[in-house]
């Protein structure tokens, strides 16, 4: 096997701006020579900032960047053997294509006859032979992108940085360029660091994907790893469509979530709170009595290659993909093969549940009206003549809005008096956590709540859950 060395290493990189905003925090990464690494994440996740620190445009507030083992953290961009392909190309408008591509070589005082040869060769690489004399504004977006790539690779950098280079192209062009870039990467053998928010692009092109969110690395791995074994709920949600459920391990290789017990292949200790991820294509719909859980089809959308079928089971929603259609209102059984259930240990046990808005524009859960006006939940909204209006002044349709409530386990209290609780259920699991017990209450609405309580209750005790409104955190989803 080929000896692989780290071409670039990022150690504890942190970037905090003057206003205290932390764009990247404690970011660690090792990239091997010749790898195609992609930073993937939603906008504002710090991926571009990280790239800019590698390029030298931004300096990290903490941490170190090593190139071939030598620190380059403070080296100005012109001294780094790294070149960048910019998001909006950044071609010099006052130079023709030849001059644009020759720019880097001229800085190195390359003799003109060498420049001519190199420019010709790199233009062949990007399929723009004979374009030397053309001016930039006669080129299409795709062609400009090729020139930008040529201008960077002609300098034979050790690392090529690409900042969402295909973002401005249309879908067809983007697909073409993805394959071409991949080819180019093989041909040139240069290390590529690629930034994108497009998960499909990342999965198609990369050897290694770094998933980022809120300035932190969420997961690093091959596209297969990231897709099949997401490290947490964020990654699962961001990469592809996913059904994500909170649940609990009920035995060896057995997990309960979504109101049913499923066999799984991840060996997690019994009683552990988990997050279960199931890809829609792995959800198998069957006759009502043949599945693990029962549900009713609530919507069917034709997607060309398949149908996207949403099934409601109790308070849970399961999205399935199937080549067979189903009828809305049909009773179905839902089953998932053990291989296709991905179990993650839930670090965060915060309970999340959905509340409804009733006719009087009050927040309601399980038939109880919560003592908090909607206007204080939906920012900038106001109530007039029994209707809700948003900040822009248009009426809010209560059916189109979903309010999620999250509450931490330690903020819920258990009570004997079931009717006093906001929701009722039985204790389905308990673990002693040293100074308190962690209970799982399976409610009558088929949801599992995690409650921390210092008093001992018994398994199968019927309890009510007291949830103070002031401890609830509300998020509005449209």
């Amino acid at each position, binding site marked *: 096997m080929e000896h692989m060395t780290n071409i670039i290493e990022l150690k504890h990189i942190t970037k905090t701006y003057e206003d205290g905003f932390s764009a990247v925090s404690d970011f660690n990464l090792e990239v091997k020579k010749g790898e195609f690494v992609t930073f993937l994440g939603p906008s504002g996740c710090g991926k571009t900032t990280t790239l800019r620190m590698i390029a030298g*445009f931004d300096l990290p507030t903490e941490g170190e960047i090593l190139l071939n083992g030598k620190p380059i953290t403070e080296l100005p961009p012109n001294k780094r053997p790294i070149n960048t392909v910019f998001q909006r190309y*950044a071609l010099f408008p006052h130079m023709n294509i030849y001059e644009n591509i020759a720019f880097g070589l001229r*800085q190195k005082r390359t003799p003109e006859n060498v420049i001519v040869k190199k420019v010709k060769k790199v233009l062949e690489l990007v399929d723009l032979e004979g374009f030397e004399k053309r001016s930039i504004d006669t080129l299409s977006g795709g062609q400009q992108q090729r020139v930008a790539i040529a201008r960077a690779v002609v300098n034979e950098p050790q690392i090529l940085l690409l900042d969402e280079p295909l973002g401005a192209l249309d879908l067809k062009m983007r697909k073409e360029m993805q394959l071409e870039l991949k080819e180019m990467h093989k041909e040139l053998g240069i290390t590529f660091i690629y930034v994108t928010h497009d998960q499909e692009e990342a999965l198609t092109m990369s050897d290694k994907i770094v998933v980022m969110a809120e300035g932190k690395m969420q997961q690093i791995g091959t596209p297969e790893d990231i897709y099949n074994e997401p490290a947490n709920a964020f990654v699962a949600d961001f990469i592809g469509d996913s059904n994500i459920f909170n649940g609990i391990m009920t035995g060896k290789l057995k997990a309960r979530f979504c109101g049913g017990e499923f066999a799984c292949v991840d060996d997690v200790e019994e009683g552990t709170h988990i997050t279960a991820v199931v890809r829609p294509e792995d959800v198998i719909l069957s006759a009502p009595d043949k599945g693990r859980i029962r549900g009713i089809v609530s919507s069917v959308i034709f997607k060309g290659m398949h149908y996207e079928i949403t099934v409601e089971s109790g308070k849970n929603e399961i999205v399935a993909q199937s080549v067979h259609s189903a009828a809305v209102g049909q009773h179905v059984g839902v089953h998932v093969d053990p291989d296709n259930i991905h179990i993650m240990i839930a670090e965060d046990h915060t309970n999340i549940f959905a509340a409804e808005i009733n006719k009087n524009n009050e927040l309601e859960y399980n038939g109880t009206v919560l003592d908090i006006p909607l206007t204080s939940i939906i920012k900038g909204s106001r109530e007039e003549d029994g209707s809700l209006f948003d900040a822009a002044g248009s009426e809010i349709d209560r059916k189109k809005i979903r309010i999620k409530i999250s509450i931490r386990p330690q903020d819920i209290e258990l009570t004997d008096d079931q009717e006093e609780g906001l929701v009722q259920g039985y204790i389905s699991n308990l673990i002693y956590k040293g100074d308190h017990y962690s209970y799982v209450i399976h409610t009558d609405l088929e949801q599992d709540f995690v409650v921390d309580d210092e008093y001992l209750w018994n398994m199968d005790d019927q309890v009510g859950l007291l949830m103070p409104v002031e401890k609830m955190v509300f998020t509005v989803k449209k």
Partner: protein
Amino acid sequence: MHRYMFSRKSLGIPYALFLVLFVMAPLLVLVYFAFTNGQGEFTLQNLTGFFTDPNTLGTLCYSFGIAAVTTGVCLLLAYPAAYILATSRLKAKSVIVLLFIMPMWINFSLRITALKEILTWLEGSLAYHPFLNTVLGMSYDFLPFMILPIYTTISKLDGALLEAARDLGAGELQAFLKVTLPLSLPGILSGVSMVFLPAMTNYVVLDMLYNSTYIMGSLIGSYFAAYNWHGGSMIALLLLGIVCLFTFMTRGIEEENTRGGALL
């Protein structure tokens, strides 16, 4: 039935009238006077006269000299100022830009009078350095016209271009010389055209600073004062020709730099 005969086109009538009455007609009159003599006959004598008379040619050279030096001084002062302003991250940037422009809002004869007093105090008498004083007065007067277009072009410059230059191995100076400077050229040209041509004709500054040498503006004035409409018109026409030539040249450069955000 068309109750309203008023169409959108009618809105252009006042402008068309204005154009005909105050632009086209005077221009035609100017051309007519420039190429006729006192008897109303066609002649090129006004033209040849201008280029053969050592006095008028001397005035042309002196005007050129004043204008060139003034433009040079303005450019040297304005470019760094505009560059620093445009590239700084100051929050109060617009306020500082305003400070540079504010003199334009104060009556210029007041400003020149103030300058005159200062110069008299410094030099003893204004008579010792008429050329220098004129250049100072004009530079003071025209500086904002140079700063503003340069500031605009540099502010509009895409920062990614500079980053690209740095990324491709250019140091800060190289990046400035190869990217910022050529791309701010439209602003420079715009500024030059707004300073150079007025500087050739603005004889009020000379008058106020007791510089009795003629420049083009004073020359035209003197012809008209002596009721020589024909000679004066020819000089005015020649200056107009220079403006057209300059604008034409600037256009060519600006077309190459479509990104430029110059004022003209």
